[in-house]
């Protein structure tokens, strides 16, 4: 077992442990803070996978924008949830069984795939992954149309969010 594998196992345990805290902890502010730990662990995984641009975007967009937005939303609505009994609904044990079955089904399906345990080729040292990603995003032969559609979707969603949350009184 190499040092990289031990590092991966530690990061994986942090991700899964903090994700469990996100779905089970009573205080929603704490859940949002545990979500930040999970997102940071995923950013570390992106760095392990040589996706440096995505690791930075994960920190900037997910932790810097989405997690802060969650904390704002919890603070704007949390008055009602204080001391209102259990945070999980009555059928949580059934949901736990469904989740375990989903994991088991995914695991069974993946381990029957013959590329399951393959290892990566060494990352080519002269390969400019960030530059190639930028070219792929704006090249007409590659992904310029999905990229533009995503930006229009983001604009429409933000205009819609302002309209929905606007107080007319």
């Amino acid at each position, binding site marked *: 077992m190499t040092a990289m594998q031990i590092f991966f196992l530690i990061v994986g345990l942090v991700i*899964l442990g903090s994700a469990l805290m996100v779905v089970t902890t009573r205080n929603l502010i704490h859940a949002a803070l545990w979500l930040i730990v999970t997102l940071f662990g995923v950013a570390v*995984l992106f760095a392990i996978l040589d996706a440096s641009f995505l690791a930075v975007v994960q920190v900037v967009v*997910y932790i810097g924008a*989405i997690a802060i*937005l969650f904390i704002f939303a919890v603070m704007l*609505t949390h008055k*009602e949830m204080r001391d209102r009994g*259990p945070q*999980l609904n009555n059928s949580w044990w059934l949901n736990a069984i469904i989740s375990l079955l989903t994991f088991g089904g995914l695991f069974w399906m993946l381990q029957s795939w013959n590329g399951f345990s393959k290892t990566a080729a060494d990352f080519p040292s002269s390969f400019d992954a960030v530059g190639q990603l930028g070219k792929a995003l704006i090249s007409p032969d590659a992904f310029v149309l999905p990229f533009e559609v995503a930006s229009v979707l983001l604009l429409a969603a933000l205009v819609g969010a302002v309209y929905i949350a606007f107080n007319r009184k």
Partner: protein
Amino acid sequence: MIPLSWFLILSAALFSIGLFGVLSRKNAVAILLGIELMLNAVNINLVSFWRYGDVSQMAGQVFAIIVFAVAASEVAVGLALVISVYRRRNTVIADEIDLMKW
């Protein structure tokens, strides 16, 4: 080097935890937290398939970026809806938001 299976198992476990959160939480904001966990599991899968396949094909990373954009817009609209419902009906519990229940 880390085998591909470790990443796939980790993301399957993260997806299942997020699914449990979506199904079991009462608070609508906490349901959105579970959805974020599931989207992150998908992103781990996309990036690890990019790395373990042909790295000169950028489709995996491009799709992960599009998932980022979709997640950001989903959170913006979802939280706006939650705040709007909270303002009108004074609740964020998903079971009590039954205005459209037939």
